[in-house]
């Protein structure tokens, strides 16, 4: 079971101090948050992707590569990578590069993005969001698994004899989570490919997230990737922790009340009652998080949102201390004791390399020499199946 934190990368005015951080301050802060996440013993850090203010994370692989260089153990991920407005070819290239630099300590979560104006800025149309997401992933999947891809679809210019470089590290593609809260097609795609399914369990009650998690598990089994219990499920969550319950409520309230997503709407108490949000002592956060396991069964990744709505760096780092020292160790122990031996471990690069090669040699492809035409043709690598075909002079 992996525990981590994810950020949407919002730059929001701190409602208590009245200060809005600069982009520079917030970018510096997010690096510190990620490094701290490793220090306190968390497993995963994930960053969102946005292409409009007030967000800073337009270039997640650059940020994550930097964090990879500053950490040793932390798995770097996204929440989410826009599979709609990004070209799947660029995603294949950028995330494979990140995978090499991070020595496999990365994966990614795909999402659609719900900001309508962003789509036309990248030549797309939000009304086509779902077919775009599905088709783009179909291509991304192949780009990481086939050295040479011929492809034609509805949304992108066709590819002939295209090789996405670098090839994934050890020829093992980055693990992919498909994020969705209400789209059965996305859960189906995750199940079809045997990829992970991530439910951002924040705004809706647990019963809502459970529907598609159960559907995904059933379809995962249907497609022969393993039993329902072996399906790979990730869950988002939102917590604010203080030693004493009443301090948690007091400290968090101004940030909740003015939060861009739910501020000025429901009260903190209504929202805590009706959704998975936990605001309270470590024990209260532990208890509420354990109810997710009651509903979803064994799952592989629990992420917490802890840095949004203008919370200052110091407060976020304090949250990480509490999460790492008082909440996650108890959850690890408690969930390990409840774990069904049949359920899967969280996938890592090492476990996926092992699954593919056992103790055998690992493929690390070496390109053939450049033939002077800058096109590698059908057999770009020395171990490619077909012999290189040279054009007649």
């Amino acid at each position: 079971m992996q525990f981590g934190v994810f950020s949407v990368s919002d730059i929001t005015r701190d409602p208590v101090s009245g200060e809005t951080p600069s982009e520079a301050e917030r970018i510096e802060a997010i690096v510190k948050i990620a490094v701290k996440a490793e220090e306190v013993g968390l497993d995963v850090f994930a960053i969102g992707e946005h292409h409009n203010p007030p967000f800073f994370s337009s270039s997640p692989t650059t940020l994550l590569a930097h964090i990879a260089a500053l950490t040793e153990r932390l798995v770097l991920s996204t929440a989410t990578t826009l599979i709609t407005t990004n070209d799947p070819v660029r995603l294949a290239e950028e995330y494979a590069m990140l995978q090499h630099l991070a020595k496999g300590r990365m994966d990614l979560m795909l999402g659609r993005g719900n900001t309508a104006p962003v789509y036309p800025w990248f030549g797309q149309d939000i009304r086509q969001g779902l077919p775009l997401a599905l088709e783009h992933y179909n291509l991304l999947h192949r780009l990481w698994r086939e050295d040479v891809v011929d492809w034609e679809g509805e949304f992108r210019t066709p590819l002939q004899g295209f090789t996405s470089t670098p090839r994934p590290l050890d020829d093992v593609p980055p693990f992919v989570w498909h994020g969705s809260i209400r789209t059965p097609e996305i859960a189906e795609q995750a199940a079809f490919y045997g990829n992970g399914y991530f439910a951002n369990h924040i705004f809706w009650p647990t019963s809502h997230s459970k529907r598609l998690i159960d559907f995904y598990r059933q379809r995962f089994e249907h497609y022969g990737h393993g039993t329902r219990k072996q399906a790979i499920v990730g869950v988002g969550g939102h917590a604010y922790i203080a030693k004493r319950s009443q301090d948690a409520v007091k400290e968090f309230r101004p940030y909740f009340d003015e939060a861009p997503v739910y501020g000025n709407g429901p009260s903190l108490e209504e929202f805590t009652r009706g959704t998975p949000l936990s605001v309270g002592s470590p024990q209260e956060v532990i208890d509420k998080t354990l109810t997710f396991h009651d509903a979803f069964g064994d799952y592989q990744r629990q992420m917490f949102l802890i840095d949004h709505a203008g919370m200052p760096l110091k407060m976020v780092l304090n949250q990480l201390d509490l999460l790492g020292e008082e909440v996650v160790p108890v959850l690890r122990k408690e969930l390990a004791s409840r774990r069904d031996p049949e359920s899967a471990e969280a996938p890592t690069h090492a476990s996926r390399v092992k699954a593919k090669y056992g103790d055998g040699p690992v493929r690390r492809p070496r390109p053939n020499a450049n033939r002077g035409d800058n096109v590698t043709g059908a057999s770009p690598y020395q171990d490619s199946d077909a012999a290189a075909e040279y054009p007649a002079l």
Partner: protein
Amino acid sequence: MNDRPREPEHTEPFRLVVVSGGTSDPSSTRMLADRIADRVRTLAADRGERVTTDVVDLRELANEITTALVSQLTGPKMTRVIELLGRADAIVAGAPVYKAAPSGLFSSFFHVLDNDLLIAKPVVLAATAGTARHALVVDDQMRSLFAYLRTMTVPTSVFAATEDWNSTELGERITRAAIEVLLLMESGFAEKVRSESWQHYQHEYGSAGGTELEIDLSTDLMRLATGGSAGPRRKQ
């Protein structure tokens, strides 16, 4: 008047839900909606039929309605009312007119409902106002909202300005609307549309108040999700 009794198998009473946007207590909007519901009940009794009535005073849901407008959260009262409307055989929807429009509370409530919750359900539209100059608000504004929700609004709308409350003509209009909605309930129109044609309407996963949970695995999008092609390009 048709005195044909209901089919013997329909022994369940009709479920009528009154939604009132009135804000005072008692409010004239609630009084008007109650009169319509009472008339439906009386007419039904004459025909050997029973009608149960549930009343939703939107005033009591005001906080949850605004919460639902600005966040994704559906409160416990909203959840109960949505269940009630999902099971309703017909609805009496009454709004006070403010600034030449149905009240914001009334409109907001219907704005946050799932688009497919009320498909084909018979609805009597009613409104109250301080002046007869607002009379067309019902047919001009409320009717289009309920058309969007694809409800079966009855032909007679019931509008009452201050001077209508002691007019016999208001009673006549109430009777006309009540008969219309009763006949629609008797016909089983909503039930038949929903059982025979539900799939022809647009739905989202979890819509219709959380009851729409069928997943069709044979669609173009599902083929695309599983590595196939989406078929011919959709119109942009």
